[in-house]
């Protein structure tokens, strides 16, 4: 936003003082002085805005990095040059914005001169630069303009420890470079649903259609309004495949970065068994989200559940009526409902209550649940899903191929 400098502030004060003097004294010269100072500031603001627009329109950023495919935590050297036409009377500087997942600051560069800096990429996934900030100022006004269109080049960051074919030693020796494309290419398609009249025929997914025997269309990510809740189910250590976990963490980081880049933001809920490990409501700051994810390592659940459907499922069972069934079953259902209702208040459900509070604060319409669905009890995921469904939220599960599903899920996507 355009902001006045100290000199412009001083001129405003003089104009106000002159106006306060001029009106009671009815002095035409003081009226002219007060009015023309205010007019002068408006004219200067208008000129500054025009100059800024011209500078922004002429801006071209050339950015080069020493590597575009690298490992998590690797150091990248960035060389950047910003060229623009600077109108007379204003000073312009450009500050490069490194990727959101990078540790390190961008540099200020003078127009037409090369600048070099290094950043360390801390999270896996596909990432790009944040653009640049055009800082312009003259004697009266200043403005910082964030230009997001200069986000090239795009970088691919692989998680630490993922074995890949075709790897080699990076230029610094401590990093490993990979030149093979990963299976995960992005978060573009959110899910699939049966074709409805009026759907765009270009969105028909022919592979799913052929598999299911009826028309299915793709639902693209980002078409739902509001920030999604990304729920991450951390597996227990020891039992899983490291490559699958690396792919899982890459998908989670990718989803978080995509949500933040789309300017919707997201909420984050990290669970392990029947425990909420971390919760971050509605954030647009990538460093906050990455801190909340905290490196994504397997975690031993401290409060494991076993076949615990949760209060939402029990309440649904308690509401079952006996209409349309034989009299014996009706009597059984009435008795069962009575027992469930009587014990509902006596059995605390801490995990369900924590999830309910998190869903309430997230204010979302969609929950994206990331889980490896390991063997064993999945009560916590069932509870999470049911709590979301009670609030009318859509639940999309992202899990490895062939891992199965859990009841109540709206769509399953393969990691």
């Amino acid at each position: 936003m355009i902001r006045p400098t100290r000199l412009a502030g001083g001129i405003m004060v003089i104009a106000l003082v002159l106006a306060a003097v001029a009106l009671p004294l009815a002095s035409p010269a003081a009226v002219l002085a007060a009015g023309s100072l205010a007019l002068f500031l408006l004219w200067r603001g208008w000129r500054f805005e025009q100059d800024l627009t011209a500078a922004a329109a002429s801006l071209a950023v050339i950015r080069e990095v020493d590597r575009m495919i690298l490992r998590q935590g690797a150091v990248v050297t960035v060389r950047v040059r910003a060229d623009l036409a600077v109108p007379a009377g204003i000073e312009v500087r450009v500050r490069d914005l490194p990727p959101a997942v990078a540790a390190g600051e961008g540099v200020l560069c003078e127009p037409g001169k090369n600048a070099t800096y290094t950043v360390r990429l801390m999270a896996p996934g596909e990432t790009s630069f944040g653009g640049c900030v055009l800082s312009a100022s003259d004697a009266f006004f200043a403005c910082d303009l964030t230009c997001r269109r200069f986000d090239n080049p795009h970088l691919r960051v692989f998680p630490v420890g993922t074995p890949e074919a075709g790897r080699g030693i990076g230029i610094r020796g401590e990093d490993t470079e990979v030149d093979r494309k990963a299976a995960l290419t992005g978060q573009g398609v959110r899910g699939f649903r049966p074709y409805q009249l009026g759907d765009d025929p270009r969105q028909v997914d022919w592979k799913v259609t052929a598999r299911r025997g009826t028309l299915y269309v793709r639902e693209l990510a980002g078409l739902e309004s509001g920030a999604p809740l990304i729920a991450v189910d951390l597996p227990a250590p020891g039992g899983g495949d490291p490559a699958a976990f690396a792919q899982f963490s890459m998908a989670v980081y990718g989803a978080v970065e995509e949500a933040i880049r789309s300017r919707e933001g997201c909420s984050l809920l990290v669970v392990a068994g029947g425990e909420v490990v971390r919760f971050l409501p509605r954030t647009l700051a990538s460093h906050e989200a990455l801190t909340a994810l905290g490196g994504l390592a397997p975690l031993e659940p401290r409060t494991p559940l076993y076949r615990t459907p949760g209060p939402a499922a029990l309440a649904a069972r308690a509401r079952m009526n006996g209409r349309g069934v034989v009299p014996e079953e009706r009597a059984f259902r009435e008795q069962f409902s009575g027992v469930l209702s009587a014990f509902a208040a006596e059995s605390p459900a801490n995990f369900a209550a924590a999830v309910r509070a998190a869903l309430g604060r997230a204010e979302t319409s969609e929950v994206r649940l990331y889980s490896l669905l390991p063997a064993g009890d999945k009560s916590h995921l069932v509870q999470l899903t049911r709590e979301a469904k009670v609030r009318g939220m859509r639940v999309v599960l992202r899990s490895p191929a062939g891992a199965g599903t859990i009841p109540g899920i709206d769509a399953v996507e393969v990691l």
Partner: protein
Amino acid sequence: MPADRRFLLLCGGEILVVAAGDLVVALVLQVIVLAAVLKSRRGYPVFVLAAGLFAGVIYAAGSIALLGLAVALGCGYLVLVLRNYRLARWAAGGDA
């Protein structure tokens, strides 16, 4: 500080403008004082023309012209802020 020196120059100039009393002399002095504050005088005749028009309105309508100018300037600053908002959106990758 150059900005402080310019501000002091402007304060002195405004005292002269108010002390002049006569509208035409005040207009000429004001144009000279504000030109001295500027580094680049690109587009300055536009401001001189606007100030001259304002002086004419003061001559015709008196001090009440200041209130009319305040309303007009309020609208002008609003348009300026909206233009800046559109520029910021365009730069951020949205529609202009």
